């Protein structure tokens, strides 16, 4: 399998993951410093999932995201400056400051929006997939959702319709073991969300969500299957969020042990990929550091752009309600 993956693709995966990581680390700090208003749900720890899936998609392929959506947009090609501007509520943001972190989107990149409603994405993605086929394109839709979201009726109805119509959509479940502060064992009686696939007549696949290459390969198969018109797949990625549900420290609740967090951090998806890249002499530790530094500079410039950007004018309040 791994034979298939080119060095270039491996470097691409790495770059997308580092971009997400550094963007999120910075956003988290800015939020705790009170510079970014509202709520931020950081994607740190789950980077391999967004990167592994998005590498297969073009701008005409659609994704729907979640409240934890920065990583998805970055992996889909989102620009740091317009993203930070949006988080700051500035007029130069992707949504002119009207959406913020929970609704950030980029239609031109095929990113149908983060979503403040858990389970809000799957039905929209089914619609995008339906639309791609109706308009006779070969585009696919990927919908990201969490283990918690898999208990929403909206997921069920969307999955059933996708299976029924054999739509080109991939249901990417990012199972990070928790819905807010509730562990999976306390929100569903199953271990693998993928077990639900059979009930919709679609294959269910479980993959190590900390291994970017594993996600890349499994997502590739599911996406190709969808493009071939063979229907949807439920791809479950076992992953973990390194920070709290909201922000970095969040509410400071003890709903998971430091041990558990530490154990998962040992499998930091970026560390794992960099080790592999070094081992195969594709990217040396120094070169890796250079990538981080380069991205860090980009992020700093983007933050500066956001901070110097204008706030929306009051008139904007009543604009964009209707077309």
């Amino acid at each position, binding site marked *: 399998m791994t034979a298939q993956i080119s060095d270039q693709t491996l470097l691409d995966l790495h770059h997308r993951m580092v971009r997400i990581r550094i963007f999120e680390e910075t956003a988290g700090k800015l939020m705790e410093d009170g510079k970014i208003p509202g709520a931020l749900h950081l994607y740190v720890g789950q980077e391999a999932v967004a990167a592994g899936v998005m590498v297969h998609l073009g701008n005409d392929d659609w994704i729907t995201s979640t409240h934890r959506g920065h990583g998805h947009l970055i992996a889909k090609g989102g620009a740091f400056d317009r993203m930070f501007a949006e988080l700051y509520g500035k007029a130069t943001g992707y949504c002119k400051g009207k959406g913020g972190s929970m609704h950030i989107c980029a239609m031109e990149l095929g990113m149908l929006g983060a979503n403040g*409603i858990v389970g*809000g994405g799957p039905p929209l993605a089914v619609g995008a997939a339906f639309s791609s086929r109706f308009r006779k394109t070969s585009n696919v839709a990927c919908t990201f959702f969490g283990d918690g979201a898999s208990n929403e009726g*909206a997921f069920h*109805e*969307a999955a059933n319709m996708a299976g029924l119509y054999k739509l080109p959509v991939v249901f990417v479940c990012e199972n990070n073991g928790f819905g807010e502060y509730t562990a999976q064992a306390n929100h569903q009686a199953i271990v693998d969300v993928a077990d639900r696939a059979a009930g919709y007549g679609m294959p269910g696949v479980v993959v190590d969500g900390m291994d970017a290459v594993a996600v890349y390969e499994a997502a590739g198969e599911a996406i190709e299957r969808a493009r071939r018109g063979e229907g949807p797949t439920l791809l479950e990625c076992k992953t973990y969020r390194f920070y709290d549900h909201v922000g970095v420290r969040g509410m400071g609740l003890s709903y998971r042990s430091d041990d558990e967090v530490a154990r998962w951090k040992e499998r930091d998806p970026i560390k794992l990929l960099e080790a592999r890249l070094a081992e195969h002499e594709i990217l040396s530790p120094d070169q890796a550091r250079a990538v981080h530094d380069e991205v860090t500079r980009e992020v700093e410039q983007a933050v500066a752009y956001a901070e110097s950007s204008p706030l929306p004018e009051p008139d904007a309040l009543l604009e964009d309600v209707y*077309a």
Partner: protein
Amino acid sequence: MAEAQAAPRKLPYVAAITDGVRQVLKEQENAFVIGEDVAGAGSVYGYYKGLLEEFGPERIYDTPISEEGIMGLGAGAAATGCRPIVDLMFMDFIGECMDEIANQLAKMRYMFGGHARLPVTVLTMAGAGASLAAQHSQSLEAWLCHVPGLKVVMPSTPYDAKGLIIAAARDDNPVFVVLNKTMLAMTGEVPEEAYEIPLGEANVVRTGRNYTIVATSRMVHEALKAAEQLKAFDIDAEVIDPRTLQPFDTGTVVASVKKTHRALVVHEAVRTGGLGAEIAACIQEEAFDYLDAPVARVGAPFSPVPFSPALEAHYVPNAERIVAEVRKQLGL
């Protein structure tokens, strides 16, 4: 066609709906109909009958019983280039997909900073009077009119049904077309050609000198009956059908009240918290000095819709109740 113009064509409300949808499917290549039992059965009220045969399975789709999924599919397809006509079999089921309607469909464009269009037309069936009890008889348009981002129309005639459906489908926003199940057999003139009834324009269906009745959907006809009965009290009532409830044509209504000095609003929905409250509030805000009496309201009583015809007969507003309310208001 020439013939049709010579002797204007009459159709029942149900066929006018079909005709409107047919026109939309003809003129918009990215339009399709989707909903429960809309294709094979042509809807349980038959208003899509023939469309599957005419346009084929690529343009009209039966779905599972999954209102959330259906409405979400409509929103996702619309945002990505289609113009879905979504069927919600009974308006009573709107609670099943109110999140997709109010949090996704209505807000996506705004939340996205204007970077999305949601041209979704939703057809749904409201109305009591068919002994279908509490969960198949409601008129819930007030919920929709309180949600920025949505438009709402309620056709009261076959002519309006076709014209409003076409206007709704040509609009680039989510528009709800709220139909009434008790009017399906009512016939009226429906031209063959495509025509639009502009959204946001009220229709003065009866001109009058000294009283204004604002009535929606089925109540328009009860209002017209009431207007006849009110002549006996020297009341020459003007009857206005807003046709579009959101955006609302306040101008036409206020102009009428400034002329007549007295007004009543009637709808089939529950009176408390119904759209009549908004209309009454607007009238007194904009025509206060012209009013000789408080704006009266007639609507359903504060209870679920009862099954028994013996009770339902007292539930649905009608001409008699309109007349009684006017007399109470004016002390006649």
